[in-house]
């Protein structure tokens, strides 16, 4: 199923020192995506807070056409998740409070719960800023999974919307597919040849995904592929950090079985470490 552009964005805001940066970032994004923006505060509504917030919105330089503000009380996670259903949200924005390890961990754990509950895509903004910092390089997963088509398409959609320079598709290939233990020169040679073969196959598969996207939707965007043999779900996060990507686009969790809570899978390493801004694409066709 083809990817649908983001029509409605939801931003759950809190009164923190980085509120301004977060709101500026959210309004800017909604503008780039030409989407409606819903701002939701989970907490008590006071006159003072509302004034402060309206003032902030007024000063905001770039704004989408449609902005709505709601105030609701309750558990932040369930409230946000419910709001996603209620307002038919396509993309949920979450902002970091401050760049600290503990906070990062906190954001990651909220995001983990929300991606499990919310029926939409989620964007984790690690580094919101008042001034725009351009999104130059997007890294997107090229896993061998039915969701990947939509995720890659989303990455190109975001890329064209934000005027990105380059998209890298990363195929994480499990070492077990090589199935040759490197012991000595001969097994090393064998393993290297086999890796090269798998690498070619993967390249073909990923290139095929990109080429299925209509040319108009990936106009002028440079893209390349990179195969990595390693732990799935881990390597891509580390890679994004190494190449200093501005955004990492990932499939939402494939399976939500009970035991996966104990054995981290694809997203877990990334949510635990948050190498950069992360966009998790919730595929509508494969809930």
């Amino acid at each position, binding site marked *: 199923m083809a990817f649908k552009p983001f029509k409605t964005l939801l931003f759950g805001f809190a009164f923190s020192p980085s509120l301004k940066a977060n709101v500026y970032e959210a309004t800017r994004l909604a503008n780039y995506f030409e989407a409606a923006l819903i701002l939701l505060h989970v907490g008590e509504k006071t006159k003072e807070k509302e004034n402060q917030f309206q003032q902030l919105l007024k000063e905001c330089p770039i704004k989408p056409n449609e902005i709505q503000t709601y105030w609701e009380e309750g558990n932040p996670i369930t409230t946000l998740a419910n709001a996603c259903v209620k307002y038919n949200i396509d993309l949920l924005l979450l902002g970091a409070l401050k760049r600290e390890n503990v906070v990062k961990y906190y954001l990651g754990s909220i995001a983990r719960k929300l991606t499990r509950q919310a029926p939409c895509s989620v964007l984790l903004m690690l580094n919101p800023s008042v001034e725009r910092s351009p999104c130059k390089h997007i890294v997107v997963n090229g896993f061998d999974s039915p969701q990947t088509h939509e995720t890659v398409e989303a990455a190109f959609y975001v890329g064209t919307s934000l005027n990105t320079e380059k998209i890298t598709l990363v195929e994480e290939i499990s070492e077990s597919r090589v199935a040759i*233990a490197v*012991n000595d020169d001969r*097994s090393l040679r064998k393993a290297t040849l086999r890796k090269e073969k798998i690498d070619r196959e993967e390249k073909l598969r990923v290139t095929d995904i990109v080429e299925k996207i209509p040319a108009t939707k990936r106009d002028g965007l440079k893209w390349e592929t990179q*195969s990595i*043999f390693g732990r799935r779900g881990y390597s891509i996060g580390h*890679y994004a*950090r190494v190449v200093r990507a501005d955004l990492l686009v990932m499939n939402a969790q494939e399976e939500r079985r009970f035991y996966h809570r104990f054995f981290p899978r694809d997203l877990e390493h990334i949510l635990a470490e948050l190498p950069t801004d992360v966009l998790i694409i919730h595929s509508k066709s494969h809930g």
Partner: protein
Amino acid sequence: MAKKSPVLAFAKELPQNIFAGFVVSLIALPLGLGLAIASDAPPLSGIIAAVAGGIVVALFGGSHVTIAGPGNGLVIVLLAAITTLGEGNLYEGYLFTLAAIILSGGLLIIFGVLRLGAMSEFFPASALQGMLAAIGIGILAKQFHVMLGLTSIPGGTIEQLMRIPDSFLLFLGLHPFAGVLGAGSLLFLFLYSRIRNPYFHLIPAPMWVVVGSIGIGYYYALVLNKEVPIDPELLIKIPDQLFSNLPRPNFDKLFDLNFIGVVFSITLIAVIESLLSIKAVDKLDPRKRRSNVNKDLRALGLASIVSGFLGGLNVVTVIARSSVNANNGGTNRSANFFHAAFLVLFVVLLGDQIQRIPLTALAAILVFTGYKLASPENLIRIYKIGPEQALIFLITLVTTLFTSLIVGIAVGILFTFIVHLFLRKSFFLFSLNIFKPNVLMYREDQSGNYYVSVKNFCSFLNFYRLKIKLDQIPESEHAIVDFSLCDFVDHTVMEGLHDYQRSFARKNGIFETIGLDIHASETQHPFAVRKSLPINVLMGLQNALSNRQKNIEQLAQQLAWNYDPKIESDPKGINRFLFFESKVVNYSVNSLYDDTFTLFDLSFSEGAFITKEDLKGTFLLFKSPIPLPNFVLDKEDFKTALYHWAGFDDINFTKHPDFSKRFHLSGNNKKAIRTLFNSELIYFFESHPIFHIESNGTHILIKGKERLSSLQEIKIMLAFSKDLLELLEKQQ
């Protein structure tokens, strides 16, 4: 090179492997007997271990030029096992220990099957060195007395060390002849590498000691017609019926805690010693192959089981004997097999002579071994890496001496970790990240380079993760290891990386580490600061120029060449010469160069551990104006004649009998060599001083004397190579 049938190649290399196996057996015989006696086991048990190791590992092993046999590290464990398990009865203890050896062989096989070959990386390098030094001191403390003829000195290691002065005063009264023989042997072993006569070095030092002491025995018996003035107690005893009454391993203590402890200690030391040796020997393999460590562990385990059932000690890969093998032309596992075969021959044919070997001479060999393990140089080397490393070394050493090997290494590991915590002052860095993957490796699509990024921290605790990735990179490629996301890198890792750098250099690959320089300034990275270039630290004591250096500098001015007295830890371009294939290049210094010629002093080592010899020589390197076939040209002498007999080729010219007689010329492409060596070139060599000359296809390497060349000799070398270059240019 055309692909040859493996059987044919094997057959062709057989003579030289037999030769190498023979030389190895010369050193394996005294070591086997000595290590067994030092463990309080019957003398032949060491030989049985060597024979079992030689045969089984040759058949099932995964390495190429290693030799298997009884190991030094195990002496202490086995000695403790035999004395404690037997509760006073040495023979009973020996039978229990055989059972432990068999079980540890089983464990070793399991280790190999589970592919735990990377396990040696879990031990911090300095702690491991400390443990080995403790083993060395243990051997030395006990054997020093035996060397002086006093076989029954009781007490622990420390007590025995304290009694050394007493023994010195005592021995002349008790066993003057045997004692002096032992002390003399030790002196000889220390001086052996100073004697630079190549013929003399054909026989390894330990064999000289044995042959010499047997010779003295015969001198008394045949010339003086007297009894040897050595107490029969101090001579080796071999049972008359060699194979009829095999000892029966006693499994009665199977569930005894003490026994289980012995099994684990033996296994631990066997694994550590074997893995360290395999790693070191791979760097000496002239074919630059990579050993299959896990397969080797399985073979060693099987060999230990076989050896244990036959009454032998357990089998490990041994470094000194392996290096002798590599240096004498061993190319495959058949050399290991032949070393075993020669040992059997020795025992069967020379049983009588072996019984004439005095224990004091064997003990001298062991004292020398112990000294090499515990050599103060090791401590100094480690201290220069960092004072905290020396502390780790010493704490492990002392703990091992006062408790046991297992406790010692455990304390060493714990202490290393505490030092890391102290240096990094962050417990979270380690505790949060220890179980997380931290290594990313991929092949960059554009450049084809392998890029490896390491994050969080990298120490002995998780070095194996990095190692698994690095092992997947062929050494002929370009690898970049990036530590810029990594907050802490320890000494074990730095040393491991240095090993990788060497093996990549050997196969013409490139191995770069980046991102460590940031650490020095940003996080005050302690190891990176001190350890990023290990050799520079070692050679950091650059004093004012010596006289010879000043002379070379003057010569440089006279010739209008450049002179650089600096030490280069990683000399470029010389690894591709045959001469260095089974040697380790340490550093080059004093380079004198212009556009074409480079003359330099080189420090390199041959052999390893007790057979290690550090050598220095002056070399001259220049680029050939024409493409050359690979060849080696050297003086024809007794040694090369022996090589010839062992299957190394010598290219002779019927038209030039004088040249053929005086020079030894070898190389693969004989036709091209014959074309190159025309009458003019041959006349040139005939009429000039003889150097060791090698070509690697593009460059020519000229080696001076077996020592550093004097200024006079340097001038001769320069003139010689200028003439040679001119001659080659003419051939263009």
